[in-house]
């Protein structure tokens, strides 16, 4: 990636998060000369999605300082006298307190049937912790999975297609005996893998400090007596990581309002042809005083179906929702409550406590104290989105994770000639001393690149332009063995857990194989909350932060449940097999110190949808190109005449695209419904091929990487 870039661009964008990528696509689309760089080796920045191994690695690495092994740059030679140099922040850290845990036991001896090791280690439920707080000398989680990776890499290439076919037939390949056959086909390699991981495990055990682990240790002896447990409750560690590539874990999980700006933009710009979507199929919440997730009746069909509200409540709820849908036309209804809390207004409409809860937390998604006007607008926004795709669904989520979105817009940018460069760090900004306008940037190879406008994501701000640095969102990701509320068909759920006692409000998104976020039989649960702690320096125990949410949704961790094997109590709830916790950081922008032609894109934040990011991108675009159209429809590949290298290559890449995925302009039929997928195998296969490329993109040259 050290090749020399052109000397000058219209716009340089640093960071490949969603707003930057949208902007990049929009600028390229109208013919601007765009350079888009990212110091990471993947697209998406804080918006990226990762497979589970990369995620483990990310969790363990992010606290370490990124080593700058590039040659020192001779700044004096590059900067003239009338220019000033603003140094970029060296540590572009937007994650903190990162930890990830796997609660699964290693595959015991009798399964692979090789050499004898001490049995007590074999049956021990393994809890691998990757955290810098613990000063562990050996990075356990990265050694063990890497071995698996080496082992499976070659195999993966050869059997990839087979795997996909298996999946199309909706086979449960986790249970396929074929996989273990393949393993035993290479005993020598396996032995070494086994040994290594086991050594790693011993280390992990030695390093264990927490009480929980000591408990495990005391339990060990009893387990050691039963080395041949007939049916283990949970898959083994190795089994779990076998499908590591099938996980797509978001840093910033979000869902799209079906009538939100992002959806409109995807249709309008035709970027949707790079993507596939799923409906969020249900909304769940927990009523105060209860410990059980309940479906929230949102649509007419939901209200009709719901068994949790009485018929009279149904009527009142429906009346209220009908009013909200076009409340502007009935000002007399809410005039008196304009400046009063939303809850008072709901009260005045004789809504029961339960229904008020549904509206405030799950439909409007506001708080009790939100003003009536704001609440009405939020409810209306929800209702407008309802039913656009599927009669009772208001949200869409992108398949393969939110990380696909910035990639799709980057791809558009690349198609229209944008230059992309990953793993290229910009060390500083060059500004004119008198006009304070940015003239260009200097990257880590010492190249000076000129530009008229500079777009940065928040984490790339020069230090002097920052004001404060705070935790913005606390996150937890869980991989579970079943849905938090199992049902006949696989669901994609949006869950709101309202604040209880000292615990904050959590927003939770659960999705699984349907959205290609996890392999079959696993579910990914994303939880978000606003950090309660005001003191930025205090060390927060994130496990503690999410304790209440975990108690509501899960039976416990796999390790805990394995010990309490015979406990029948919470069989309904899923077990946590893997979990990660981290904080997303955000910094304020000191606008005074920022040159005029520099635009800062904010971090994903706590917002559930994408409207904020889209507004930001649109506004910035309008400043840079005041009279141009924002993301007009991009032509289909077959509409393009073969006269340009860039187009031609793109066209080849797209030739496999299924015509069924093409949108019909405006009506949003682009979305693939579940049924379509079941009927036609083509799109699914295509989707997976796309995904395959997508995964490759994280590490190698991107599909849209022209540099």
């Amino acid at each position, binding site marked *: 990636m050290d090749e020399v870039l052109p000397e000058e661009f219209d716009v340089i964008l640093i960071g490949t998060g969603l707003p930057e990528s949208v902007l990049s696509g929009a600028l390229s689309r109208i013919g601007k000369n765009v350079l888009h760089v990212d110091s990471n080796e993947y697209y998406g920045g804080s918006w990226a999605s990762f497979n589970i191994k990369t995620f483990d690695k990310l969790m363990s690495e992010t606290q370490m300082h990124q080593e700058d092994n590039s040659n020192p740059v001779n700044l004096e030679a590059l900067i003239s006298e009338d220019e000033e140099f603003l140094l970029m922040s060296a540590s572009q850290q937007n994650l903190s307190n990162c930890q990830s845990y796997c609660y699964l036991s290693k595959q015991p001896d009798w399964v692979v049937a090789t050499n004898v090791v001490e049995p007590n280690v074999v049956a021990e439920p393994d809890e691998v912790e990757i955290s810098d707080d613990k000063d562990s000398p050996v990075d356990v989680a990265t050694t063990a999975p890497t071995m698996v990776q080496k082992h499976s890499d070659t195999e993966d290439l050869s059997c990839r297609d087979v795997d996909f076919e298996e999946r199309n037939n909706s086979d449960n390949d986790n249970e396929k005996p074929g996989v273990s056959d393949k393993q035993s086909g290479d005993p020598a390699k396996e032995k070494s893998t086994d040994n290594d991981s086991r050594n790693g495990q011993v280390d992990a055990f030695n390093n264990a400090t927490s009480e929980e682990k000591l408990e495990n240790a005391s339990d060990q002896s009893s387990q050691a007596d039963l080395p041949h447990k007939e049916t283990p409750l949970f898959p083994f560690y190795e089994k779990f990581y076998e499908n590591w590539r099938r996980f797509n874990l978001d840093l910033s999980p979000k869902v799209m309002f079906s009538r939100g700006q992002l959806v409109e933009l995807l249709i309008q710009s035709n970027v949707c042809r790079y993507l596939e979507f799923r409906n969020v199929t249900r909304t769940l919440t927990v009523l105060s005083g209860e410990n059980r997730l309940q479906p929230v009746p949102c649509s*007419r*069909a939901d*209200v*009709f*179906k719901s068994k949790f509200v009485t*018929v*009279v409540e*149904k*009527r*009142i709820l*429906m*009346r209220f929702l009908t009013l909200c849908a076009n409340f502007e036309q009935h000002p007399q209804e809410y005039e008196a409550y304009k400046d009063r809390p939303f809850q008072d207004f709901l009260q005045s409409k004789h809504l029961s406590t339960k229904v008020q809860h549904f509206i405030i937390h799950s439909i409007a998604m506001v708080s009790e104290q939100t003003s009536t006007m704001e609440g009405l607008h939020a409810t209306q926004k929800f209702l407008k989105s309802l039913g656009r795709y599927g*009669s*009772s669904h208001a949200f869409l989520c992108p398949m393969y994770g939110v990380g696909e979105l910035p990639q799709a817009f980057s791809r558009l940018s690349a198609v229209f000639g944008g230059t992309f460069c990953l793993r290229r760090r910009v060390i500083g900004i060059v500004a004119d001393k008198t006009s304070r306008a940015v003239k260009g940037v200097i990257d880590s190879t010492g190249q000076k690149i000129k530009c008229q406008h500079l777009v940065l994501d928040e984490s790339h701000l020069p230090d002097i332009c920052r004001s404060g640095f705070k935790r913005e969102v606390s996150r937890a990701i869980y991989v579970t063995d079943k849905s938090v509320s199992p049902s006949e068909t696989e669901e994609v759920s949006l869950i709101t857990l309202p604040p209880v006692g000292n615990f904050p409000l959590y927003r939770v998104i659960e999705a699984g194989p349907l959205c290609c976020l996890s392999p079959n039989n696993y579910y990914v649960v994303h939880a978000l909350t606003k950090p309660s702690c005001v003191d930025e320096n205090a060390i927060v125990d994130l496990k503690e932060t999410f304790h209440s949410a975990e108690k509501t949704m899960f039976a416990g961790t796999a390790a805990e449940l394995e010990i309490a094997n015979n406990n029948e109590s919470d069989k309904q709830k899923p077990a946590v097999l893997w979990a990660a916790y981290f904080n997303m950081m955000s910094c304020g922008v000191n606008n005074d110190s920022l040159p005029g032609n520099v635009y800062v894109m904010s971090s994903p934040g706590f917002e559930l949808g994408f409207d904020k990011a889209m507004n930001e991108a649109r506004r910035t675009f309008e400043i840079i190109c005041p009279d141009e159209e924002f993301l007009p429809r991009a032509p289909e590949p077959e509409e393009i005449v073969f006269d340009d290298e860039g187009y031609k290559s793109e066209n080849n890449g797209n030739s496999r695209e299924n015509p069924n995925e093409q949108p019909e302009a405006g009506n949003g039929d682009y979305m693939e419904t579940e*049924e379509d997928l079941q009927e036609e195998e083509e799109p699914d296969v295509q989707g997976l091929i796309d995904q395959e490329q997508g995964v490759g993109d994280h590490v190698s040259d991107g599909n849209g990487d022209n540099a």
Partner: protein
Amino acid sequence: MWNYRKKCFANSEKPKSEIEAMLNSELTFIESCLRNNPKSYGCWHQRCFVLLKLKTPDWKRELQLCNLFLQFDDRNFHCWDYRRFVCSHSNHPLKDEIDYTNKLIESNFSNYSSWHYRSKLLPEVYPDSSVGNKIAERKLLEELELVQNAFFTDPNDQSAWFYHKWLLGRGHPMQSILSLHVSRFPSTLTCTLRKPIKEEDCQQALVRVNGTVISGKWKPHSSACYMNTWTFTPHEKIGTGLISVSCQVDGVETQITMEIDDNEALCCAKNTIETFCESSSDAKLLVLEEELNSCRELNELEPDNKWVVLTLVFLMKAIDPIRFFSEMKELLKSLCIIDSKRSCYYQDLHSKYAVENWIICADLQSRKADLRNKGITRLCHVEFLVGLTHLDLSHNKLKALGSTFLVFPWLQELKADDNEITEIDGLKALPSLITLSLNSNGTILELR
């Protein structure tokens, strides 16, 4: 075009296996046609034709095809029809079909087709053991709850209300003889049945005098094909003395005894509330009462929703038409205002309930009917009134004495003062009429 194709198949002399293959390719072809126009009568009929021709039709696949088409348009009645055709020819369990309608109703209950299909399936899957009811009570109560959810969710949606009306409605009334009249001079026997029957059925009827079957000729009361009232003229005159006459017709039988001195005798069946309503167990009554209360609540929330008010009326009628009569009257009156376009319907409904209630309480054997001041716009259930000699319909809102009045062979005195009658066509066929009073009415237009 389709018929031409049908002929080709029917007259083809090719070997059977070849025809089979052709039929199969025809199915594929029809499917592609349907994809273009899923509401083509011709295509669906052709498909039925082909499937009946096939030796081993794949009914499962056809059901899946229906599922597919209904998924795109859940109100495509062509496809619903076809679905019924498929189900009737295959051994597909009807219970599964109910589950299927469940699914569709859950996703969108504004769907007449699926409610209707349900109303066809339920009586077959859950038949009622006792007579006269449509479906087993347990299921009925479940259905009532389901549909209640629907109309509370959206009271402006008609489909749910219609289904509800169907649920409250009764099954077909059992056949019964409402009245039997015998006269010596002229020698006739007149039988009025609850349900009209055809002439062929009537000719099967057996008339016995003192136990001996006698022959004669049955004549309908008017020229219609199906009639309630039939008159029997025996070949030999009915003798004098104390006689017992029995009449067995359409599976029901009744008996009448004539005293020595009487020239004629009339026997009317006893009527109760159950004559016009389905009988209700205590459990059902409880559910209906509950529903009545929640509907009252709904009415408070939605004061101007005609469906709510109308359903209140239906519920009251189902619970106790006599106790609730005045309230029903008021509700129907308010309906005439809320839904003025249908005011005549509501008035007729009121008339019907008024007459029913009178019939339940009246002594028909006296052959005199006092229906003054009932506010009726229409005289219904005349089959119950056939035997009348005196009928007073004064101070009502009748507009016409039309053909319904053709049924009173013995009516001597008819009073209809203070009505809005402009048409009296029905009067020309009242053979026994002596006194007619039509004071304070509209201008009589014509007497044809």
